[in-house]
């Protein structure tokens, strides 16, 4: 059981938690998107596709204009664009929201590679210069705190942004008037409508927000963690985020906990050059762990009452 020993030892290293947090944030952003979308009653399993689109356009824009912030903005917009397709199809046209979500994911997977082919041809999509990536920022002073300094304050700028968004999302949903309205629309759109709330506007807003967040995650992946676009580089993170959202019972902090489990699992796996166990078994760890936690601690999670149901106003 030396493997177990190795892992236990790792758990006390700041490096591991630093990596875990970064990996978790890649999942947290789309998960937050999922939370707000489904709280408004629109099932969203399209984070994978929106994130992939964001990753692609982040690189395209950065290569074109050599401005990382502009590129990040473009990525978020492209995510939002995908989201608005989902929104229009499932809110305006009342399509089955699962179908629409799946379609978005397939669409993004196909379109990005198709465009890489068409735009860059043989010489292939290029690399973003080190200086044009989303920067890592060490918070002066704080980053010197033993252990926590490295974990919390020596991170990529997006990590800080994500953690702030996490808190904001929580406040928005559970403390503000807008949040109350979003949740009312997700629980009982008729009631919200009769109370004079614009159900459609709220839902569009929420879904598009999920696109912005997923697009941001895509940018972080492509021009923060990496420096180029590789087909399907999101690699199922959108689906993990979906799982995290449900695991977290459609709450921001709940989702964050789940994301941390996966991030930690990834970070532990990354040490497979020094942990002596089949890397494949090691890779199973976070998923098995999640199952166990679900079976044991978390248990039932019940979605917003109107989640997934298209709203048909009393009129047409």
């Amino acid at each position, binding site marked *: 059981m030396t493997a177990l020993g190795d892992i236990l030892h790792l758990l006390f290293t700041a490096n591991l938690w630093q990596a875990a947090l970064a990996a978790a944030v890649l999942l947290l952003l789309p998960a937050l998107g999922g939370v707000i979308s489904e709280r408004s009653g629109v099932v969203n399993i399209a984070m994978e596709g929106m994130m992939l689109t964001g990753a692609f356009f982040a690189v395209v824009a950065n290569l074109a204009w050599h401005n990382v912030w502009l590129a990040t903005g473009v990525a978020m917009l492209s995510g939002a664009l995908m989201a608005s397709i989902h929104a229009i199809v499932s809110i305006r046209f009342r399509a089955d929201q699962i179908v629409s979500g799946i379609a978005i994911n397939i669409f993004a997977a196909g379109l990005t590679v198709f465009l890489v082919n068409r735009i860059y041809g043989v010489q292939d999509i290029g690399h973003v210069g080190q200086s044009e990536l989303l920067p890592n920022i060490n918070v002066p002073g704080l980053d010197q705190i033993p252990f926590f300094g490295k974990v919390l304050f020596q991170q990529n700028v997006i990590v800080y942004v994500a953690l702030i968004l996490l808190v904001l999302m929580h406040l928005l949903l559970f403390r503000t008037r807008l949040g109350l*309205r979003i949740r009312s629309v997700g629980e009982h759109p008729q*009631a919200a409508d009769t*109370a*004079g709330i614009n159900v459609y506007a709220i839902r569009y807003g929420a879904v598009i927000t999920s696109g912005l967040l997923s697009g941001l995650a895509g940018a972080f992946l492509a021009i923060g963690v990496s420096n180029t676009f590789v087909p399907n580089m999101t690699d199922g993170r959108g689906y993990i985020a979906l799982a995290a959202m449900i695991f977290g019972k459609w709450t921001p902090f709940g989702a964050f906990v789940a994301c941390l489990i996966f991030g930690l699992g990834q970070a532990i796996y990354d040490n497979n050059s020094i942990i002596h166990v089949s890397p494949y078994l090691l890779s199973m760890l976070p998923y098995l762990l999640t199952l166990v936690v679900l079976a044991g601690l978390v248990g039932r999670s019940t979605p917003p009452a109107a989640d997934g149901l298209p709203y048909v106003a009393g009129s047409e």
Partner: protein
Amino acid sequence: MSDQLLAVDMRNIRRQFPGVLANNDVVFSVRAGEIHALVGENGAGKSTLMNILYGLIHPDSGEILINGKQAHITGPRDAISLGIGMVHQHFMLIPVFSVGENIMLGREPVAGPDFYDRGRARKEINDLTKKYGLALDPDARMGDMPVGLQQRAEIVKVLYRGASILILDEPTGVLTPQETKELFVVLRDLVKSGKTIIFISHKLKEVLDISDRITVMRRGRVVGHLTTKETNEEAIATLMVGREVLLRVDKKPAKPGAVVMKVENVTANSDQGVPALKGVSFELRQGEILGIAGVEGNGQSELMEVLAGTRKTTGGHILLGERDITTYDARTERDAGVAFIPEDRRGTGLVLSFSIAENSILGRERSPKFSWRNVVLKLVAIRDWARRLVQEYDVRTPTIEVAARNLSGGNQQKVIVAREMASKPKVLLAAQPTRGVDIGAIEFIHRRIVAERDEGTAVLLVSAELDEVRSLSDRIAVMYEGRIVSIEDPDTPEERLGLLMTGGGTRREGAA
């Protein structure tokens, strides 16, 4: 009518739904400061008309004047700003929200950058509830409220929005007699304070009791404007249904036979896990109707569920003939000959998306009658069965393939009644069999229940309508706080029953 200011004046309203002309050139006017009743059978078009007034449904044609001024209502927002408020037939409340949040929704007090100001919300509500004497706890979870209080919350919600014209769509459908009384007190106060009220109900007594004028609808048309003082139940009923209806049930005296079901101090818990039945005992005989009177929430629902096998007992015994069926589940109970008309028609009694045919075997899909060795369905048998029910129980539907969702409440109820009665049960449990159903259907269902009795079925009836209990039952068991406090004769004066139902009165242990 021009002699008096019209709060609401709807002219030639027309609304077509697929297959139905829900409103056909409806002319409907309400005077300022009156209580105006709108009556009609299920599907007559009342809700539609009111939804149009509230902006939820857009009319195909017609015009609306509010307080004499042309109004262009495109959605609830417009209606609200015109001072119109509506309490919907199916409550518009969010169970997981607090009472306060439910009431505030849409006009929330905010502090700082858009933060929901719980404190001010609480204060505003307390002010309102004091002003109109409608006590409510703003912090309670709406889902945990009894219907009566939910109803109250709906009204406060409307008042909070400063409505001067209140629409109440079947507000008493789910209320107990006392709750209804309380509601009426409130309504009268509201009128005194200058509000106008539109009141929809299937219960003509109430209509006569509360309203000033009455508009009667049938099949999407207005078939009569009446002044309450100058009319009576029979007249209204006849207008509504388009023919004479007998409102009183005429039945021969019962010929009670052997005891079929024996309940021996049964105890059970409510969904919240608190004791709801604290030792209920009674006997049920062939060919009798035992009515259970009681204020809702005193254990009647739980008792029915226990007897039907959908709720577990925590003690006591239930005997069906000689057989101890205490531990039976819904399926085995049914097979043993216990039929159950549940009070929640839409949620429990039917699978709304299933066709009438499919619903007609709900719970019997494995019985040899409808399946080979309870695996493969006998489709032909099922269709014949469904057709028989539809025509014997006069379910108004084009075909048996129609989804239950698209039947009116009354017809939905008939499907359930038919299914449960046609299985020739030993015992029939009927919970609120006529709730929210129009008098035409009520009359029909009452006759069937009596017919069942006469064929020797033992019927246990639970109803919030004291009248219904008294007119149908051969014996009346009064339930209070999870116990049967007394067993009375049907002709016991209403006052005494009311007293017993609220825990007063001298108990008289019946034959049981």
